[in-house]
């Protein structure tokens, strides 16, 4: 009787509903890594992450910035000869690390995602200025200044509003969400 599930099996279960073939079908050809436009900025290439999952290297996978540097461009997906939904795996890994609150230090991604989601819960729409604090303080002074300059130019061109819009049926919207994610007291 198995004592506990391996990490690779855990991830396989996480991705049970994915279209395409399971990640254990990977032949390590490297086409995904060769196609990925962000690979140079990843701790590990997509191919390596898949190999690491197969080798049950849980800690190394959880502390990698790879999936947080994925732009979801799906280039890997359309080219993978094994038919694996690699972009879906990247999303799954993001979900896994956010649920467990266990990811690499100093990443903007998780906090950005959290802010984005809370923002939509508040108004039903996205509003850029709210997102700025998640990344702006991680920039160096020169970049921060450039960002502020750009925001100002956009504002003067009438492209940056200062007040978030709210959808009308916000309460209904929130109740919709609560039927999916069970929060909020008795029904």
């Amino acid at each position, binding site marked *: 009787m198995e*004592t*506990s*599930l391996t990490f690779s*099996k*855990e991830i396989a*279960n*996480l*991705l*049970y*509903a994915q279209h395409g073939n399971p990640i254990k079908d990977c032949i390590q050809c490297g086409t995904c890594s060769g196609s990925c436009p962000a690979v140079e900025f990843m701790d590990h290439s997509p191919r390596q992450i898949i190999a690491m999952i197969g080798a049950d290297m849980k800690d190394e996978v959880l502390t990698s910035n790879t999936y947080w540097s994925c732009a979801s461009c799906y280039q890997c997906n359309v080219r993978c000869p094994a038919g694996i939904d690699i972009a879906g795996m990247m999303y799954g890994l993001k*979900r896994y690390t*956010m*649920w*467990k*609150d266990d990811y690499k230090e100093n990443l903007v991604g998780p906090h950005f995602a*959290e802010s984005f*989601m*809370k923002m939509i*819960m508040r108004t039903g729409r996205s509003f850029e200025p709210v997102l700025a604090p998640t990344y702006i303080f991680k920039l160096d002074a020169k970049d921060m200044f450039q960002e502020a300059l750009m925001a100002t130019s956009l504002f003067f061109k009438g492209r940056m509003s200062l007040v978030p819009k709210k959808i009308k049926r916000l309460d209904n919207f929130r109740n919709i*969400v*609560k*039927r*999916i*994610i*069970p*929060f*909020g*007291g*008795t*029904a």
Partner: protein
Amino acid sequence: MSENKRLLIIDDDPDFVSGIRSILEKAEYKVSVAYNPKEGFEALEKDPPDLLLLDVMMGRGAEGIMLARKLRKDPVLREIPVLIITGIREQIAYLFPGEQVHPGFVAVDELVEKPVDPKFLLERVSALLKASEERKQQTS
């Protein structure tokens, strides 16, 4: 009391599962496990247990809720008592900070939050099994 009672756990967290499994098996329950909703539902159909211990967040998201609703539609499976054990407050509470986790709209028998105290777990399992027995006797 627990002789021959069969329990099914559907939960994606292997560490949590091995923890409660040993507690339940020590109390002489027969325990089966499925780590994703698809295998879980297949196990339920193939061999309906006396009680289901169900996680909420697994696979794509709050799949446990979707599974619980699906069960309630099946004439055989709807009779199985369902105990939700969820860690949702740690996993995704930032969406609704400070609010209660509620099973309200989903007809489950009970919802408890992780981490769960072993004695409390055994108490609730036993109570739900007893209530289910009584219901069966009333209808037969």
